[in-house]
C-alpha cells in the first residue's frame, strides 16, 4: 500500500498544474476548479490499480474533464454555441497579427476572450495550445474523431481572434 501511494504521488501528482488548468478553464472559477481537482484526484487514486502505464497526464485529464462537466451539469450551466458566421468562414478575414499581438500583452483580456468560447471549443484550445497534446491524444480524451478535433481547433482559433480584438461576443 505504501508503494502504491508513493507510485501514485510520483506518476499522477506531477500533473496537478495541468489538471487544475483544465478544471479552471472548464469550471470557470477557482473554487469550483479546486473541487473538481480534489474529486478527480480521489477518483484517480481509487482507480489507480486500473491504470496500466500509458500517459498519466492524459489519463488524469480525462478524469478531470468528466468531473468538470458533471459539476457544470449540477450547477445547471447552459450550453453555449458559436456564431454560425465564424463556423462557416474558411477565408481569413479576421484581425491582423499586429492587432492580436497588441491585445496579447493584456493577459486578462486574452483570458476573457478564451472564456467567451463555448466549452467544447475552449477545451480543445486549452488541450492543444496550453497542454500541447496531439490531435490523436485530444481525440481520445474528448471522444471525437481526429478530423472533428482539427476543425474545432481551427474554428475555435478564428472565434478567439475575433473575441480578442473585437472585444465582446457578437
Amino acid at each position, binding site marked *: 500500500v505504501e508503494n502504491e*501511494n508513493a507510485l*501514485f*504521488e510520483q506518476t499522477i*501528482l506531477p500533473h*496537478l*498544474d495541468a*489538471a*487544475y*488548468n483544465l478544471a*479552471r*478553464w472548464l469550471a470557470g472559477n*477557482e473554487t469550483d*476548479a*479546486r473541487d473538481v*481537482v*480534489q474529486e478527480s*484526484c*480521489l477518483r484517480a*487514486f*481509487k482507480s489507480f490499480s486500473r491504470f496500466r502505464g500509458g500517459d498519466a497526464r492524459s489519463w488524469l485529464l480525462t478524469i478531470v474533464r468528466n468531473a468538470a462537466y458533471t459539476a457544470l451539469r449540477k450547477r445547471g450551466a447552459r450550453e453555449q454555441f458559436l456564431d454560425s458566421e465564424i463556423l462557416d468562414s*474558411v*477565408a*481569413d478575414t*479576421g484581425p*491582423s*497579427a499586429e492587432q*492580436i*499581438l497588441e*491585445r*496579447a500583452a493584456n*493577459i486578462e483580456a*486574452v*483570458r476573457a476572450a*478564451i472564456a467567451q468560447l463555448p466549452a467544447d471549443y475552449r477545451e480543445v*484550445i*486549452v488541450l*492543444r*495550445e*496550453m*497542454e500541447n497534446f*496531439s*490531435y490523436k491524444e485530444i481525440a481520445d480524451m474528448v471522444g471525437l474523431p481526429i478530423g472533428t478535433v*482539427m476543425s474545432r*481547433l*481551427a474554428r475555435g*482559433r478564428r472565434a*478567439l*481572434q475575433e473575441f*480578442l480584438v473585437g472585444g465582446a461576443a457578437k
Partner: protein
Amino acid sequence: MNCDEALRLIDGYHDGELDSMHSVEIERHLAACDNCAARLNKLRVLREAVEQTAFSAPRDLRASVLASLHTPPVENAKPRLGLTIGLALAAALVLGFFLAQVFPGNSSEKTLLAALTDSHIRSLVGTQAIPAPPIRAVRASPRRPTRPGPQLLNARDGPECARFP
C-alpha cells in the same frame, strides 16, 4: 495547392499534424502566398497569447489533495451519519419528555390504548379476564405469549396483535 486548400490545412500544419507530402505542398504555397503566410503568422501569435494564460495550481492544492487521499470522505461519512442519527434520537427523546410534562393528557391516551389492547387480547383469549401483557412485549415478540387459554392464539394471531397498537 490553392489558398482554399492551404487554409483548410494550415491549422494542421501549424500543429505539426500533417504528413510530409502535405507539409511540403503547403510550404511551397506559403513561400509564394503572402496571405496564407500571414495566416500562419497569426496562428503563431495567437498560440503565444493563449499559452501564457494557463493557470497553475494554487500552492496549497497539492497538500489538500494529499490530505483528502489519506482520509477518504467515504470512511468519514459513516461516523458522521451515526452522530447525526444519535443527535436526532436524543432530540426526539428530550422533546418527548417535555411534551409528556406539558400535556399530561398524553398519558391518559396511553392508558386508553392499553385498555383497548387488553380488551382485544381478552377477546382473542376468551372471556376470562387476564392481566394483559405489557404492550412492548406484544409488540416485540411475534412468538405466542405463554399465558392460559392459548388455543385461539395461534401463530397467525401474534403479528396481528402486534400491529394493533
